[in-house]
């Protein structure tokens, strides 16, 4: 099967393709005519009539009020249920927090008495280093140790431990939950159908939109933050699980069937282990996205590093903001590398060991315990062992502020000229173009596109969602959102995909790129957003920088994943047939990597949309701002309606791209089963 040249697999009849193209062409022509000359004929198609706007915001507000105050299951109310869930999550959180930060306390508030101090900074660093040594050898141990030393030396320790505690609770929940949902969706088609739109909603409704109801339902504090983090960070895990399981080679599955696996064994002993590489990407995403939520989580009581970043930037202390920001990155890198090493390790067959003494069997565990106890006792007498001494802390002080000042004073005019050129020639024309389009025309055109690409079902979905955006009175803001995201995704793909292709085959480059994208994904955008404001003023351009910097990550990551997964035998075959390097890349690798690259594009759009609320912080006037205003006015309906509009844009683009990708695949003759 794999030896068959890709191009010779059955093509759809050429006539079908041609019909589709003709239909799209006609639709486009009609659309342009209508756009140019239709405004006088049908003004309602350009501005949605105010009287017809559906008051969805009011309904949702009333519904959430009912949910919070009156909803009941008879024996207990809905709020009781959510508060119970909160208590269940709170228990492990408090446990971890007391170990890492507060110590074991009795009582609450300022009356609390500390019985036991938290695990000392030396012991925590030693434990993670030992874990690194155990799972990945000396190299990993050094990386992890350096990350944690960074936290201590730059005075971020106690904040970092608060953040670490909430991550240690959120990530396992997210990974396990995502994996189970993904397996379920793989097994039952109906679950997948139900789940896909929910996943899109979870990932694209800006967190601010559901923050107010979450606070009411789950109480104020770290638990609500964990819940919000889970909603946001779990979907990629589920998605990757579904994709990965489907891509398990059929021979592996056949083997499983042949040796008589039960369904349970098939899932856990055959499918999940064979899909491990992709699943690791999913886990990596959960960790990264959880750390990405640190800022927003800190706004609702999680505290920790996110709070430090916000406070530092409010006094324009870029150095302090950057230090706290990089502390988040250091945590991310340490956690990510550790988790990957552990996952790789457990996959190796465990050699049979003869029964030995407890000490010999658990050298690492014992060493860790020894460190905890010794430093704990010693810490009572020498405070420097318990907490890193303040006198030895480093800080970049005003260095970064002065760097920004230097750039500002010397290069502002050049940057301004560059910005203005891009704004006037690209951004603003595109914005005007989108804002001038008639909503009714867009709905109709998208419906035709959906029909041509897949069929009546997609047409109905796409048209329905787009109409709802207009019907709830958000057309203009939605168009500004589309413009900002569209431009950003374009730039992110233009930069990201080539980087991914270049890095996929050069291990050293990939390692550097990996650090860079991990940094981009976890460094809170606030850290570079404010210096960007100093250099580019508030407005769309600054917002675009932030969105590109964040959404470039999946563009790179999935391109790399796609190219690395290309079957080496196919590449060999290409070489044997005398392909040049360029032909190998364009004719074989890129084509075979297309499904992943398309998934990457899809994720790029999702990431871009999820940055919307942040762009509102630098003065854009899109749906993100609408969500932000709703938050400040504690109006859940308004926020959710705007949030849903964001999600609808995401779903429409996702479905159209997927359908387009499926057609492309069919035309190129790459069936998903090729591998």
């Amino acid at each position, binding site marked *: 099967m794999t030896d068959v040249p890709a191009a010779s697999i059955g093509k759809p009849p050429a006539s079908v393709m041609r019909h589709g193209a003709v239909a799209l062409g006609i639709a486009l022509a009609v659309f342009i005519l209508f756009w140019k000359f239709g405004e006088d004929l049908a003004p309602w198609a350009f501005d949605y009539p105010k009287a017809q706007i559906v008051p969805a915001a009011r309904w949702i507000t009333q519904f959430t009020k009912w949910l919070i105050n009156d909803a009941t299951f008879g024996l207990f109310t809905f709020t009781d249920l959510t508060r119970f869930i909160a208590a269940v999550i709170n228990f492990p959180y408090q446990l971890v927090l007391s170990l890492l930060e507060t110590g074991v306390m009795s009582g*609450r508030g*300022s009356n609390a008495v500390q019985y036991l101090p938290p695990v000392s900074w030396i012991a925590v660093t030693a434990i993670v280093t030992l874990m690194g040594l155990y799972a990945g050898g000396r190299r990993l141990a050094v990386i992890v140790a350096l990350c944690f030393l960074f936290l201590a030396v730059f005075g971020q320790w106690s904040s970092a431990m608060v953040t670490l505690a909430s991550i240690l609770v959120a990530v396992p929940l997210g990974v396990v939950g995502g994996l189970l949902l993904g397996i379920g969706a793989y097994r039952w088609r109906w679950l997948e159908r139900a789940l896909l739109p929910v996943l899109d909603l979870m990932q694209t409704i800006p967190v601010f939109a559901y923050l107010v109801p979450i606070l009411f339902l789950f109480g*104020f504090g770290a638990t609500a933050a964990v819940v919000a983090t889970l909603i946001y960070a779990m979907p990629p895990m589920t998605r990757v699980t579904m994709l990965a399981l489907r891509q398990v080679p059929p021979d592996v599955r056949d083997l499983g069937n042949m040796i008589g696996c039960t369904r349970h064994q098939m899932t856990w002993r055959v499918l999940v282990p064979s899909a491990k590489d992709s699943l690791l990407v999913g886990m990596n995403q959960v960790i990264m996205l959880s750390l990405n939520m640190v800022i927003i989580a800190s706004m609702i009581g999680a505290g920790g590093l996110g709070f430090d970043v916000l406070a530092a930037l*409010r006094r324009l202390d870029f150095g302090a903001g950057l230090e706290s920001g990089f502390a988040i990155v250091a945590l991310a890198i340490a956690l990510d590398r550790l988790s990957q090493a552990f996952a790789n390790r457990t996959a190796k067959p465990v050699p049979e060991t003869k029964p030995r003494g407890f000490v010999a069997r658990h050298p690492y565990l014992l060493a860790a315990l020894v460190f905890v106890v010794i430093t704990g006792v010693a810490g009572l007498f020498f405070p420097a062992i318990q907490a890193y001494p303040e006198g030895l802390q480093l800080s970049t002080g005003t260095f970064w502020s002065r760097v920004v000042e230097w750039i500002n004073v010397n290069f502002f005019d050049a940057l301004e000229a560059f910005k203005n050129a891009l704004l006037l020639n690209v951004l603003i024309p595109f914005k005007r173009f989108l804002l001038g389009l008639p909503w009714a025309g867009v709905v109709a055109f998208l419906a035709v596109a959906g029909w041509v690409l897949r069929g009546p079902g997609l047409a109905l979905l796409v048209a329905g969602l787009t109409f709802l955006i207009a019907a709830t009175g958000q057309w203009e803001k939605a168009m500004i959102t589309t413009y900002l995201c569209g431009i950003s995704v374009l730039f992110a793909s233009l930069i990201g995909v080539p980087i991914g292709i270049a890095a996929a085959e050069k291990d050293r480059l990939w390692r550097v790129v990996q650090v860079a994208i991990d940094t981009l994904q976890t460094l809170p955008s606030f850290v570079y*957003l404010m210096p960007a404001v100093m250099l580019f003023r508030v407005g769309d351009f600054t917002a675009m920088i932030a969105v590109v910097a964040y959404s470039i990550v999946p563009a790179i990551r999935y391109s790399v994943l796609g190219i690395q997964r290309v079957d080496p035998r196919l590449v060999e075959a290409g070489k044997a047939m005398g392909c040049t390097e360029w032909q190998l890349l364009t004719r074989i690798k890129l084509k075979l990597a297309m499904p992943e690259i398309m998934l990457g594009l899809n994720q790029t759009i999702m990431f871009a949309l999820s940055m919307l609320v942040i762009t509102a912080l630098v003065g854009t006037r899109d749906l993100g701002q609408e969500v932000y205003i709703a938050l400040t006015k504690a109006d859940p309906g308004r926020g959710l309606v705007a949030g849903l509009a964001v999600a609808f844009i995401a779903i429409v683009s996702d479905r159209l791209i997927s359908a387009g990708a499926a057609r492309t695949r069919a035309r190129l003759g790459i069936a998903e089963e090729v591998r």
Partner: protein
Amino acid sequence: MKAIGFKTRTVAASLAVSAIAIMASSFSATAQESQDPIKLTLHDWTGQLITTQIMGDVLQKAGYNVEYVQADYLAQFAGLETGDLDVAMEMWETTGREAMDAATATGKVENFGPTGMKAKEEWWYPSYMKEKCPGLPNWEALKDPACAEAFSTAETAPKGRYLGGPVTWGGFDDERVEALDLPFEVIHAGTDAALFAELESAYQRKAPILLWIYAPHWAPAKYEGEWVDFPEYTPECYNDPSWGINPDMAYDCGKPHGEIWKVGWAGVKDKWPGAYAAIKAFTINNDEMGKMITDVDLNGKTVEAVTDDWMAANEDRWMTWIGK
């Protein structure tokens, strides 16, 4: 880090120390009141951290159990309504009024009265702009086209560029520009950090800027500049179009100076009556606060050090708040 270290250290270190100190000191007055912690909210600006820390210190001296919780300025009302949070020390008339009204209307949140600090908000420019626009601070100078041009950028020219607060702050600047017929375009910053980032940028380059500044804040202390003198605000100006210079439009005057309120969960009164009285009695003025904010944000002191100094210097004042 200075301002920040304080909260975690409050939780970790000072708890143990203060707990012992308190047990020894004043058990009597409040022995019958709840020993559940009174949860004070912390936001992300220094002034509020100082106010809250002082209140917390005073309550601890009176024998109450205090806990600090980080919460978003506006999202916190969700917690104040349910009693998950108890006291928020700074709710600005100018930015928090709407959320506060919505919360107090439920009956679950109570306004604990003014802090004594007055929020001042107005258009502001750095002193070096006076050379280009000599008529300032009188607002009528802004009507001069040459002056407006001095404040312009490529996108707004020939109109001047005025950087307003985030839309969420309200402030009626678009209306003000229209009512006073000013040749300016209002650009909204998304957040207050963005607002001051632009000021810092312009100030470094001695470039033109006109923007919304508020006090108490570190910016008026750090940067040399002045507030524009608009016609004095009165309620009629905002409500009655016929009032003021423009007979057809409202908002033809400056911004109101507002109180900064203390708000909290309505159950505080019954659960901790003594603390309730102390919170209501708390007052502090703009000058004191301005000095403390400057000490922290510009002189690099910690919030704790600054509030400890204040507590030591004002013992007779806060003793009366807790009725001793």
